[in-house]
């Protein structure tokens, strides 16, 4: 059989299995908003583990990770480093959110915040922020999928068709099954990616150099020792500074647990304990980034001078003349990375825009059935918008996404205050959140005005904290009954 045909068959098989694992759960969940958005609060540890884990294995990890290792060396370790501290707050926030959700029916992050700080305005603004961040994020996942299929098939599959077919599958299972479809398909995709990552990450150093140690020795002998020294290289190839590396790790870690699509999975857990266990197990997923980075390192000496670092993985695979079935499997692995993040983002963007946005500005709240239907329709609309961006992609979308990390991190202080600081007030929370986002955006646009070369999100956080604490202390305390509800959401001691 021809190489192209075999690759196509493998990819088609993968897509069919994804579709099946995504569709089947729709038979079991209730036809309510709670069923669609929070899976009737029924996710067990197995599914939650993959839902939480697969969110880092996006197109960025699969293509960008090796790209960073290839072009910037040790700088890429930051992708692993921030995860282990970034997940920790979810251990504390998650069970609290889960208990409140079970008792009062919350299914999104903004619902919690809007209730604690008595502000529909905050809910609508958070919904807007989420959609602004999620659409480029989703677009990038589609670009990743279309790109990989296009390169590997040597142009056989045009970019628009690759991205289109992949995301029609995602649209179908997200439309019908909601979060449980995301959960089950992520479990399949997650396992698949892990196997592909380890196989390639161990195979490439061995095939090209005879071992991992030999590979790193070869990199040093070729005069690239500086690359392997933390914090690695900056984008321009000069050594990166510690300010840049440290603030990138910190801001990503702070933002990690409060990404709206990530945080809201707390509501889908079966119990507080199963949520905790999935969070605890998360670093085992993180370790799978190690082989991903090894792939990038393996190309430094063997394939120097590849201009577009993000394409290093498909590039290496094409050079090696591997059997068609292996290339097909890799293709499917890259699609799995793209889809397992894309589906979660798509589902959350639709849920949040309707529940936290549209529903809050209406005079009479939507009926449950109508709300669910509207969320499903938004899945289609948001999917289509992101796809349109993907086929007419330009660089500004990447910049928009990178800028969003600092913006999302600004949610952290208000979440922390909601659970642990009684004295936080509505005015304090609103000014902190939006002051932080403004400062972050300002330094993102006018980056040459930064006093120190730190991530703009750090400046946002500083402003955020000053405003949150200062304005809260200057205003009257919020209604104690409402505040206590959130403060007392911890576990009962034996």
């Amino acid at each position: 059989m021809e190489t192209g045909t075999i690759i196509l068959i493998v990819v088609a098989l993968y897509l069919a299995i994804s579709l099946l694992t995504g569709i089947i759960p729709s038979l079991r969940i209730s036809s309510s908003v709670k069923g669609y958005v929070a899976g009737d609060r029924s996710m067990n540890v197995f599914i939650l583990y993959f839902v939480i884990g697969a969110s880092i294995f996006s197109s960025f990890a699969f293509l960008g990770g090796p790209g960073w290792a290839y072009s910037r060396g040790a700088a890429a370790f930051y992708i692993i480093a921030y995860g282990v501290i970034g997940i920790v707050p979810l251990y504390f926030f998650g069970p609290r959110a889960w208990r409140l959700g079970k008792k009062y029916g919350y299914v999104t992050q903004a619902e919690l915040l809007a209730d604690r700080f008595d502000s529909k305005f905050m809910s609508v603004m958070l919904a807007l922020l989420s959609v602004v961040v999620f659409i480029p994020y989703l677009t990038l996942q589609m670009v990743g999928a279309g790109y990989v299929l296009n390169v590997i098939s040597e142009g056989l599959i045009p970019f628009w068709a690759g991205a289109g077919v992949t995301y029609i599958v995602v649209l179908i299972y997200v439309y019908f099954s909601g979060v449980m479809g995301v959960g089950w398909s992520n479990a399949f995709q997650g396992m698949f990616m892990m196997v592909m990552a380890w196989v390639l990450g161990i195979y490439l150093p061995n095939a090209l150099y005879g071992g991992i140690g030999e590979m790193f020795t070869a990199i040093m002998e070729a005069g690239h020792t500086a690359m392997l020294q933390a914090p690695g290289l900056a984008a321009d190839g000069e050594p990166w500074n510690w300010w840049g590396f440290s603030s990138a790790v910190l801001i990503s870690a702070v933002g990690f647990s409060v990404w709206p699509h990530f945080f809201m999975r707390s509501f889908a857990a079966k119990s507080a304990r199963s949520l905790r266990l999935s969070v605890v197990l998360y670093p085992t997923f993180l370790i799978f980034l190690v082989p991903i980075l090894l792939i990038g390192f393996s190309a430094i000496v063997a394939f120097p001078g590849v201009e577009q670092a993000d394409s290093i993985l498909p590039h290496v695979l094409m050079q090696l003349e591997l059997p068609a079935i292996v290339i097909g499997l890799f293709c499917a692995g890259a699609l799995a990375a793209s889809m397992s993040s894309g589906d979660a983002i798509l589902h959350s963007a639709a849920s949040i825009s309707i529940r936290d946005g549209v529903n809050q500005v209406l005079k009479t709240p939507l009926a449950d059935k109508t709300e669910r239907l509207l969320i499903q329709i938004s899945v289609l609309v948001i999917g289509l918008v992101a796809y349109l961006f993907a086929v007419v992609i330009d660089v500004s979308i990447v910049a928009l996404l990178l800028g969003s990390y600092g913006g999302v991190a600004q949610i952290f202080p208000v979440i922390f205050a909601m659970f642990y600081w009684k004295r936080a007030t509505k005015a304090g929370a609103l000014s902190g959140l939006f002051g932080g986002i403004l400062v972050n955006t300002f330094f993102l646009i006018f980056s040459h005005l930064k006093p120190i070369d730190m991530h703009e999100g750090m400046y946002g956080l500083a402003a955020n904290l000053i405003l949150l604490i200062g304005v809260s202390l200057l205003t009257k305390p919020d209604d104690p009954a409402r505040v206590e509800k959130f403060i007392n959401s911890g576990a009962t001691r034996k």
Partner: protein
Amino acid sequence: MQSKNEPTGSQKSILENGSFWFCIVIIMISLFIIWPGYTLFSSATPLIFGFPLSFAWIIFCTVAGFIAMLALYIYDNRNEEAD
């Protein structure tokens, strides 16, 4: 951080609280994966199990974070009601 629901007047010292120690460990790990802690382990050599020191160190910190969370999880399960 989890002590909010203890009965008031609890005589338990903060040093007996697992969450307190956990937070100390996590702060330590945080400082060891950025400046200044990471600077001590930032060089490319020696190779540890084939990995440059800078890489092996990050892997080690990830494993350490995992063990710390696992310990807290076990501690919390002993001391808290399941729900």
